[in-house]
């Protein structure tokens, strides 16, 4: 596993007698241990702090729930039962909502919808923001000026209000929801990507690629992108949380995901009135908090993982 670099010096020793002491291939006296990607990944996983582990396990649970929702949910997403606002019972674990749908089932389907939309939105935001930022960083000059000022303009408008306005223009279908939030969020991605890419663009290997005559796409994808991945991945985690919260907030305001599609944000809104029954039935009052808790726990879990990743890649090392 570690034998790949050990070379006998005389294998390449120059014939020049004065140089008997020197050979380029054996220059490093202590050869670094070489590890495959999988070994390195496993090594850093093993050293991950407990918080990161909790985060990863929680994310895995959410993912499983989202993927296998139809198998896990006891009832259908939009299945209506006779009794609205039913209390917690054996049949309806968390009771039913205002028109008699099983809340537990809707929580499970909600994972699928809410997470799916948030993920798609974040990916789109990174594609738009990251792509434009790399173009701006490589070309600089006017392209950079125009794109950056455009982003400044977009950032100057309060994003929630802007999103509400755009949604009422284009209608709150799932595709328009994804596009609008993605475009608004891509401004933040643009800022970060441009800043980190600027540090790489000035490196000599980028100049070497330019001198070679490489095109824009190659320089962006092969020379710069691999070198700025760590901060982008960390940002991806954070952005995902924010998109998630935005989707939930828009749903709560009634402009997000439309019924009967289950979604955690609108579930909080629909059942919010139950909170006032706390003095009569504590369990019923807890019901609107369940989707809220689902949102909160996923956000925390993602942040745990992102924090660890950031710490690992920012070069902060514990002293021995």
């Amino acid at each position, binding site marked *: 596993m570690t034998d790949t670099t050990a070379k006998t010096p005389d294998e390449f020793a120059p014939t020049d007698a004065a140089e008997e002491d020197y050979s*380029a291939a054996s220059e490093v*006296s202590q050869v670094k241990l*070489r590890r495959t990607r999988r070994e390195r990944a496993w090594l850093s996983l093993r050293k991950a702090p407990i918080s990161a582990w909790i985060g990863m396990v929680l994310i895995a649970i959410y993912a499983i729930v989202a993927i296998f929702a139809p198998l896990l949910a006891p009832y259908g997403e939009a299945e209506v039962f006779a009794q609205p606002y039913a209390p917690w019972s054996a049949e309806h674990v968390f009771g039913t909502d205002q028109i008699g749908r099983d809340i537990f089932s809707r929580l499970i389907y909600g994972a699928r919808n809410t997470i799916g939309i948030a993920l798609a939105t974040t990916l789109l935001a990174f594609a738009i923001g990251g792509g434009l930022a790399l173009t701006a960083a490589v070309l600089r000059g006017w392209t950079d000026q125009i794109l950056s000022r455009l982003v400044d303009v977009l950032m100057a408008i309060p994003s929630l209000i802007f999103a509400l306005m755009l949604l009422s223009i284009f209608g709150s279908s799932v595709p328009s929801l994804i596009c609008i939030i993605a475009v608004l969020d891509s401004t933040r991605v643009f800022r970060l990507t441009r800043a980190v890419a600027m540090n790489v663009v000035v490196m*000599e290997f980028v100049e*070497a690629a330019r001198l070679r*005559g490489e095109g824009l796409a190659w320089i962006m994808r092969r020379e710069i992108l691999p070198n700025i991945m760590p901060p982008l991945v960390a940002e991806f985690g954070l952005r995902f949380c924010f998109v998630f919260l935005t989707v939930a907030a828009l749903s709560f305001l009634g402009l997000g995901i439309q019924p009967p599609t289950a979604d955690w944000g609108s579930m909080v809104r629909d059942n919010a009135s139950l909170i006032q029954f706390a003095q009569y039935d504590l369990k019923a009052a807890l019901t609107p908090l369940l989707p809220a808790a689902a949102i909160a726990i996923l956000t925390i879990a993602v942040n745990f993982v992102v924090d660890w990743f950031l710490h690992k890649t920012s070069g902060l090392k514990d002293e021995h």
Partner: protein
Amino acid sequence: MANDDLLLRMRGVEIDGWSDERWHDIIKGVDLSLKHGEVLGLIGESGAGKSTLGLAAMGYARPGTRIKGGEIVFDGQDLRKLSERQKQRLRGSRIAYVAQSAAAAFNPAHTLLDQTTEVAVRRGQLGRKEAEAYARELYAAMDLPNPDRIGDRFPHQVSGGQLQRAMTAMAMASKPDLIIFDEPTTALDVTTQVNVLAAMRKAIEQFGTAAIYITHDLAVVAQMADRIKVLRYGEEVEEADTHTMLTAPKETYTRSLWAVRSLEKPGETSDDKILQIRNVTAAYGKVPVLKNVSIAVPRGKTVALVGESGSGKSTTARVVTGLLPPSRGEVLFDGEPLPPTLAGRSREQLRRIQMIYQMADTAMNPRQTVGEIIGRPVAFYHGASRSEVRARVAELLDLIELDESFSDRFPGELSGGQKQRICIARALAPNPDLIICDEVTSALDQIVQEGILKLLLRLQKELGVSYIFITHDIATVQAIADEVVVMYQGSVVEQGRKEEIFSPPHPDYTELLLSSVPKMEPGWLSQAIAERRQLTP
């Protein structure tokens, strides 16, 4: 009795470093002793443990290293037995440290004077007024211009050489018994280096301070040190007084270090020019950098561009490569005029001129393997298939004396010399006619430098490629150049065959440059300073 005179005694010092999940030896039991007022030179290649040993003399171990064994006795106290607080009190006041990069060691937000006096004042050794007066005295001793006022400036308002001198003054401000100089002039131009060295030596002598001088430049250490210790792989090779060490080194390794500077080749020239730069004037924005520069490069030969930083050497390279279009003048390549901008040049024109950079670290994408780095130009210019690329990569690696197995490695897994070799291979990959080498050896150790220079010479002989070799190191010019172009402030001072340039009579600037190159004789510095006084009124 003799022990009373000893300031520092290190015995059997062992230091470990942590990497790859285990401890490695860095220093393997080194002894060192230093008398009051004495200067000891520590030399060796990078990785020999010079800096680690120097820091250990302050009882300090860098993060990730630990002092495992031995004793470090400074003025009767064993530093290893003192608490961290006690050691901190010694550092800065009785032992001071001068780092390689003064620019990085100064805080840009405070004036020089504030930083010079900080330690002495905060430790309560001197009052602010006295400390400032003493600092001015030190600035004067360091030959800084206008010593009364220079302290009010911020670090970015003075030159690199002045900053390095100010840093020495800062180290001396608390009247230490021992100063550790860690490669203090490596980052400076030769012409500046001489002044800094002279000022440092004068100040050390004047105040009777002992010093440990760490460097990889033998000629420099010969000027500064009373005694020299050679380190290699964390072990002592030999130690002797400077004169003995220079004239009669015992060990083969030491002799090989000495031999590097004697590499030399006769200059040849030819009338067949591959590249002609004609009356080129270029500017960054409104700042003129090149003024009416004309340079010709003979085919299959090497032209060295020499001069201090800011003289326009690298800008000339940028004009040739098309990164900086000239405002006037033209560049002829193989008789044809080259389009001034990169975008205007054809792929074939780009292929024929390649470039090698000073810092191999930043010149290679750290996320690509050696195979990808070298293979890309082959695929890009020649449209070679995957197996052809692989064969060519193996061939190129063989050409630069490395093994085929290197192609899966990442740049981070290579040593400095190996990285530079890979950069050479990348430049060779498209079979260019001209390679521009921008300070390609100045970041390397001397033995490694020699290897790279020999490689470049061999490649030229085998492939007939021409070089433009940018450097400020005269020894390197001796080793590789056929023709020399001396540049100063954006103009060509002198141009011609190496032997002609290096033999008198010289224009003033060439004379200054040549006289600034440290020679391996103990008395050289005083002599050079005496001569320079006449040259630069």
